[in-house]
C-alpha cells in the first residue's frame, strides 16, 4: 500500500461560533472578516514544513489539491506547492490531486506546469485531474454548470495529446482552439505521468477511469463505512469494463489520528475533529448541489442510493459540534483513530473493505497546530506505517505510481518488522 501525506491547507482559526454566524465555509465566507493574511503567512509556512516533515518520516507521497475561497482548504494553485515539494523532497511521489481542469484557460497551462514539476522532481509526479467541485468551478470561478464536464473532457484530451503526441500540432476544440500545441517541456515520465481521477460519487467518473485505465480516488471525509457502496459501484463498473481487480487502481482519503493510547488520541484530537466536521465542512447546500453539475443519470443514481452524502461529501452534519469520539471512530467509522494497534487494525479493515491500494492520509485537520500535526505524523510513521505499507505490494504491481518515486526509508525510531 502507498501512503500519501496530504495537506488540505486550510484555515486553522475560524471563530468559535463560525457555523452559527455564516452560512458557508466555502464560496462566500467574507474574507475581510475571516481570513487574516498575517495568519495565512504562518499557516503557509507550517503547511510546507509539515509536508517536508512527512517526507523525512518516510511517507510514500506528499500531496495537496486545489480549492478556492474555502476555509477548509485554499491551496489555490497546487502546482506552486508541487514545485516546492519537487525540489525539497528526494524520493516521494508528488501527488497533485489535482488541477481542476475546467479552470485552466487554455488548459495547456496545466499541461506545462505539471510537466515542469515532473521534470524538476525526476519523474515523481502524480497528475490528478479532478472535474472540480460545484463550489469551485460554478460558484467561485463562474463556469456554467452544464459546461463543466464537456470542458473537463476536452481539457483532458488536449493535455494528454500535448504530453504524448509529436508537436507542434493543432487542436480544434469547442472551448480551446490552438494552432501550435508544442509543449516545452513534455513530462519526463513516458508516455505520461500517472493520471489520477478524484470523485465524489459521479457515475461518469467511474466510467472515465475504467475507459482510460486511470486510478480512481474517492475523496470523502466520511470514512470506509459510508464509502463502501460507492467503491463497490466503482469496482462493478471496472469489472464490467474488463479491467483487473488490482487494488492499486483505487485510492481513498482518510482522516487518521494516532496517540500513544486510545484515550490519548481522544484527548488530543476530538476537539479538532469537531472543529473540522462542524466548521470546515459547513458548506451551504445551494453551493454543493448546483443544477447542471451532476447529470440526470448521477442524480437518479444518488436518489436510488438514498444517500445524498454520496454525492455531496461536504454536507455538514447536524449536531456534530458535540459528536463523541466513539461515534466518529467506532459507530460511523468516519475517523481512524486511537493507539497504533487500533489504527493498524482499522487501516487493514479499510484496505480490505474498499479494496484500495492508495491511502490519502488527512493528518492535519482544521484547527490542529503545527506541533500536534508533527506528533500525529511521527507516531503513524514509527508505529503504524511499518505494519501496513506492505499490504498488497507482494500480490499486485502498482502501475499508477510515478516511475521516479522510490520507497523512502522509515525513521530509525520506527518499529522493525520482520520481512
Amino acid at each position, binding site marked *: 500500500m502507498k501512503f500519501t501525506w496530504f495537506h488540505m491547507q486550510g484555515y486553522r482559526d475560524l471563530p468559535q461560533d463560525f457555523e452559527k454566524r455564516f452560512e458557508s465555509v466555502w*464560496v462566500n465566507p467574507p474574507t475581510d472578516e475571516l481570513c487574516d493574511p498575517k495568519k495565512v503567512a504562518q499557516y503557509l509556512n507550517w503547511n510546507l514544513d509539515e509536508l517536508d516533515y512527512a517526507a523525512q518520516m518516510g511517507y510514500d507521497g506528499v500531496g495537496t489539491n486545489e480549492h478556492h475561497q474555502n476555509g477548509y482548504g485554499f491551496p489555490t494553485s497546487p502546482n506552486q506547492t508541487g514545485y516546492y515539494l519537487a525540489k525539497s523532497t528526494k524520493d516521494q511521489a508528488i501527488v497533485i490531486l489535482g488541477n481542476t481542469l475546467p479552470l485552466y484557460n487554455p488548459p495547456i497551462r496545466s499541461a506545462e506546469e505539471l510537466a515542469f514539476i515532473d521534470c524538476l522532481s525526476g519523474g515523481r509526479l502524480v497528475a490528478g485531474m479532478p472535474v472540480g467541485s460545484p463550489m469551485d468551478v*460554478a460558484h467561485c470561478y463562474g463556469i456554467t454548470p452544464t459546461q463543466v464536464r464537456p470542458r473537463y473532457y476536452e481539457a483532458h484530451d488536449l493535455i494528454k495529446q500535448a504530453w504524448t503526441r509529436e508537436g507542434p500540432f493543432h487542436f480544434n476544440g469547442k472551448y480551446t482552439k490552438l494552432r501550435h500545441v508544442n509543449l516545452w517541456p513534455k513530462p519526463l515520465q513516458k508516455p505520461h505521468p500517472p493520471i489520477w481521477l478524484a470523485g465524489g460519487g459521479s457515475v461518469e467518473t467511474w466510467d472515465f477511469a475504467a475507459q482510460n485505465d486511470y486510478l480512481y480516488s474517492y475523496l470523502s471525509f466520511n470514512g470506509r463505512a459510508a464509502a463502501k457502496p460507492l467503491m463497490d459501484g466503482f469496482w462493478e463498473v471496472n469489472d464490467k469494463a474488463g479491467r483487473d481487480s488490482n487494488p492499486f487502481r483505487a485510492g481513498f482519503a482518510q482522516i487518521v489520528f494516532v496517540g500513544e493510547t486510545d484515550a490519548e488520541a481522544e484527548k488530543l484530537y476530538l476537539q479538532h475533529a469537531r472543529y473540522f466536521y462542524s466548521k470546515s465542512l459547513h458548506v*451551504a447546500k445551494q453551493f454543493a448541489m448546483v443544477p*447542471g453539475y451532476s447529470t440526470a443519470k448521477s*442524480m437518479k443514481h444518488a*436518489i436510488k442510493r438514498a444517500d445524498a452524502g454520496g454525492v455531496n461529501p461536504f454536507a455538514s452534519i447536524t449536531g456534530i459540534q458535540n459528536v463523541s469520539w466513539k461515534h466518529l471512530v467506532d459507530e460511523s467509522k468516519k475517523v481512524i483513530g486511537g493507539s497504533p494497534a487500533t489504527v493498524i487494525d482499522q487501516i487493514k479493515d479499510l484496505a480490505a473493505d474498499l479494496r484500495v491500494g492508495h491511502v490519502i492520509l488527512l493528518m492535519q485537520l482544521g484547527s490542529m497546530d503545527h506541533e500536534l500535526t508533527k506528533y500525529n505524523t511521527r507516531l503513524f510513521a514509527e508505529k503504524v506505517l511499518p505494519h501496513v505499507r506492505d499490504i498488497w505490494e507482494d500480490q499486485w504491481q502498482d502501475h499508477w505510481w510515478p516511475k521516479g518515486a522510490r520507497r523512502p526509508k522509515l525513521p530509525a525510531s520506527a518499529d522493525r518488522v520482520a520481512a
Partner: protein
Amino acid sequence: MKAERIELTLKSGLKADVLKKGEGAPLVFLHGRLGRHWDAYLDELAKTHCVYAPLHPGSQDADELLLLDAVSDLVLYYDDVLRALNIEQPVMVGHCFGGMVAAEYAAYFPDRVRKLVLVGALGLWRDDVPVADIDSMNPDLIPATLVNDPRAAGVAQLFAMPADPAFIGDLMVARVSMTAAVNHFIWPIPDRDLRRRLYRVTAPTLLVWGRDDRFVPLVYATEFSTSLGNAKVGVVDNAGHFPHMEQTRETAAQTLAFLH
C-alpha cells in the same frame, strides 16, 4: 379544452415540444426558469389567440445543450420551431428567462414579431440594482422571493411536492434539469449584451411587471422601456415575479388590451 401537444424533430436534429390551444392570431409564449406550466393566463390568451407554448430545449435531454452554446443558438432554435409550425408574425410573450429570449428573437428577427410582451424579463443588468442571485440562495427562501404568497392557488403548483413519495425523485430531477438548461445560457450573471441589440426591435412592446418582483426588480421594466423606445410599462399590484400567475385576471387584461 386541453392544450394539444405537438412533438417535432427539427432539421437541426433537435426536438421540440409545443403545447397549442385556441383560435386566432398566433401567440408564442416562452416560459421562465421554473419551467412550462399551462395556466389560467394562457387559457385567457387562448380565448382570442392561437397560443403556442414551446418547452425550453435541453431540459429533458441535457445532451441537446451541447448543440446550443449561446443565446444566438437558442434564437435560431426557436426560429426553426416557428418555421416548422408555419407560424408567421406572432405575438411573442416571454416570462423571466423566456422574456429575455423573446426580446432577443425580436432583435434578431424584427420583421417576424408583431407585438412583444415581456413579463418580469431577464436580460439586462444594473450593478446598483442586481438581479437577485437565486442560485446562491438557501432553497427554502426561494419561493417567498419569487412570489408574494407561495401557497396562493395560482402559484402553488410551482413549488408543490407530489403526495406520493415515489414521484418526488423524478420531480426533483425534472426541476433541477430545467434550472440547469436555463442557467446554461445565463450563468452566473444573466447579461449577454441584449441591451446593445434592443434598438433593432421594431415590435410595439408591453413590459408587464409585478410591483413586488424581488428577482428582477421593477426598475428593469424602465430599463427595457428606455432602450426599446416603442414600449410601455404595465405594473401589476400585489404580485412578485409571476404576475401572470399571482394576479392572472389583471395581467391578462393588460396583455389583451395591449394586443387588441
